[in-house]
Structures are given as C-alpha cells and as structure tokens.
C-alpha cells in the first residue's frame, strides 16, 4: 500500500507541480444546492470556462460561467433563479483566485476566492479543494460555501417559506496545462 502511494506521488508530483505557464479548464461541473423544507434542488452547469496563468511561482486563475446555463431540471425554476439573481443584468459568475505553484502537488489545497455574482463581489478565504493528478490533467473538487446574503439575493419563497440562506456551490473541474 505504501509502495503504491509512493508510486502515485512520484507520478503525480511532476504532473501537478510542473511550472506550466498556463492552465486551461478542460471539463467542469458546477452545481448549486438550494434547500427548502419541502424542496431540495440542485442546479448544474457544465458551461464554465477557465484559464490559469503562472508567473513568479504563483498562478492566477479565472473561472467564469454564464448564470443562465444552470439547469435545475425545470425551466420555470431556472427562469425564476435568473430573475432573483439578476442574471440578465449580471450574466456571468466570475471566480478569481491566486495559488502558489507548489500547491498544485498537494492532495488538498486551500484557496482564497473572489466571486462576482449578481452584481456583488464576495470573498471566501481558505476554501479546501481536493486535488488529484492523472494523465497530465489535474482534477479539483471542492465546495464554495456561498450564501444568498453574500450576494444580496432575496431568498425565493415557496408557500411563503423562503429557501435556506446557504447555497453551497460544488465544484468539480479538470484542468490541463498548455
């Protein structure tokens, strides 16, 4: 088992930790979770695009996704979400973060995120992401602890009961260096 772990590290370290000048988002699944006493809803988007540029041992990452690409399984609900989050006025969710290059080789990385959404900007410090490297690509999984109040979103109600303030966003991304 220890040997397997050592082999994995030997393989993954050069891949994940290599000083690539740029990284490009290959595949992504972003999903927000909305909770109500009578509803549990997940809205999923695969339309995110991202790029990372490294310089002086640090990498700046930018990830953006159109708000209207989130699909919760019901058109009516998605249009209501678009209205509530001012998604036509501010059509993009933009996430910026800066990571130290060596962080790419760790199994868990902690990122300080700047998220622009619904015309507001929120900062999330020390958000953990699980990182695995394979086949020259890096797979990153984590959850951004977003809330409606962070973005001044009026919580929608169903039968006069509003949804929970917490709308965690699960992030599942595959990056590759160029």
């Amino acid at each position, binding site marked *: 088992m220890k040997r397997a772990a050592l082999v994995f590290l030997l393989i993954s370290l050069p891949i994940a930790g290599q000083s690539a000048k740029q990284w490009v988002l290959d595949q992504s699944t972003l999903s927000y979770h909305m909770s109500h006493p009578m509803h549990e809803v997940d809205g999923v988007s695969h339309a995110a695009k991202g790029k990372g540029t490294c310089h002086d041992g640090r990498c700046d990452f*930018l990830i953006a996704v159109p708000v209207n690409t989130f699909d919760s399984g*019901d058109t009516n609900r998605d249009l209501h979400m678009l209205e509530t989050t*001012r998604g*036509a*006025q501010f059509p993009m969710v933009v996430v910026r973060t800066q990571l130290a290059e060596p962080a790419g080789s760790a199994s868990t990385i902690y990122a300080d995120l700047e998220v622009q959404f619904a015309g507001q900007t929120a900062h999330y410090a020390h958000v953990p992401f699980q990182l695995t490297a394979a086949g020259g690509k890096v797979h990153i999984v984590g959850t951004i602890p977003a809330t409606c109040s962070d973005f001044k979103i009026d919580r929608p109600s169903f039968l006069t009961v509003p949804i929970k303030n917490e709308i965690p966003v699960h992030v599942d991304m595959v990056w590759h260096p160029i």
Partner: protein
Amino acid sequence: MQLAAARLTLVVSILASFVLQPPRTLAQEAGALSGSVTDPSGQAVAGATIVAKNTATGQTTDARTRPDGRFSFQALAPGSYAIVVTAAGFAPAASNANVPGTSSEPLQIKLAALPNAPAAQTPAASSEPSLADLGFTTQQTQSNPQLQARLARRTEMLKIHQRLGIITTIPMAAAVITGPMAKAKGKNGQTVKEPTQANLDTHIALGGATTALYLSTAYFAIAAPRIPGTEKHGAIRWHEALAWIHGPGMILTPALGIMAYKQENAGEKVHGIASAHGAVAYVTAASYGAAIVAVSWPIHLKFWEKQK
C-alpha cells in the same frame, strides 16, 4: 335565496378584484429620481446602467447614463429603492434612495475602477487572465437590462398566478362537495327528492366564484411575458399539458351546469349533455389538482428521501 347567492358571488368578485390588482396599479403617485455617475477622477461615465429596485415590491427599473453621465427615472412608484450601477471597466456600485426624495439633491455615484482594469494593472498583474481570454460571446457576457425587467415582470405575474391558483382550490373543492346536494335524487327513473333552493344557490355561487377566480388565474399565466430562446422542460411541461384538460373543463362545466339548472327549474329530469355536468366537473377538478401537484412534486420526493 337567489339574492343570497348573488350577494356571495358579488362579495367573492370584489375580493378577487382586490387580489387581482397588479402591484404597480396600487402606486397612485409616481416620482422622479435623477443623478450622475462619475469615474474616480470625477469624469462623467456615459452608458452606465442604473438599476433601481423597489425594496418593498422587488420591482426593478433601469436607465442608462447619457454622454454627460446623468440619468433620470421619471415615473417611479413612491418607496425605498436599492440602486445598483454597473459600467464596463468599473466595479459595480450600490446606493439607496427614496421616492419622493427627502432631499432635492440628485444622486452622485462615483465608480471605482476594477482591480484588473487596464489603468490599474501592475506589471505582474497584466498577465492575469481576463474574461475576454475565455472565449465567451458578447451575447453571453453583455448585460441585458430589458431582459431583466422582462424576467421581473414575469415573476411578478406568475406569483399572482400561483396565489390565485391556490385560492381557487377553495371554492372549487366546495363546489365539488356541494354538487351532490344540488342534484335531484331519483329511483327507477323517477325523481323522489328535489334539491333545496338553498343548496342549488350555494352550489351555483361557488361554481361562479370558481370560474371567476380560475379565469383570473389563467390570465396571469397566459399574459406573463415569454422569455425568448427558452426551451421548456421539467415539471412545468406537465403543469401546462394538464391545462389542456382543466381549461376546456372550466368552460364546459359551468355551461353544462346552467343547462342542468334550467332543466331542473322547468321540472324536467336533467337529461342529455347536461347530465355530464358532474362527471366533467370531477375530471376538471382532478386535472386542476394534478396540475398543482405537478409543479410541487419534489415535496413527495423530499418526504420519501427522509423516510430512507
């Protein structure tokens, strides 16, 4: 008793007319709001988008700054407004205002440049990726205040549709329950017991109230703005498909009811197509209930998940 039924119908109609008043018509006096938008150096920012959201009703109105950086809203409903200003290359700015204003001073909003805007870039930051590098189309990234206003109007109308739809279930259920009491009882083809006039009047009043409320409910769904380029999927499709059953049913049911009432009043046994009044009403009520359940189906999923 017919007078009582007429009074009941009148009371329900008056109540319905209050419910149906769109929020915007409640605002009797409109007010103006004006101001100017400048950059950090005090220069006018042209083309900035200003969105004013009424904090009480949630209704939004937007405007754009003119070349001199000034903007104005001419017909805002009185109340408190949250103002959000956006412009390319600047961080969004927020402010608050009251209409009519407590001060005659126009709003003055100064925008801060974005940290990665060209003017603010440091040599190291100049290599940071920008939104333009990601390859999104202008259509995807461009703000669309008109669409936002359309979405807001749509939500507003569908909220009324939802509330009225739930209210409609009350007289509808009562009309279904009182239906058998308004029917002549017979044996071997002979009428052995006529319904009382009070039962008939109550049933007619409830049926009338149901029809009025139903038509109002339908209006707010049909007239809600459509969003271009939207392909419908999910529970809303069932909700709309069922309307093709309860919609015609809500026209047919009262028509058959009137025919049945006339036949009973003429001393005849209800016959012909009028005898289908009850059956059509049950199908209509059932499909109406199913349409409500269709858009609430995750309720059952949630309860089922909890039991696991």
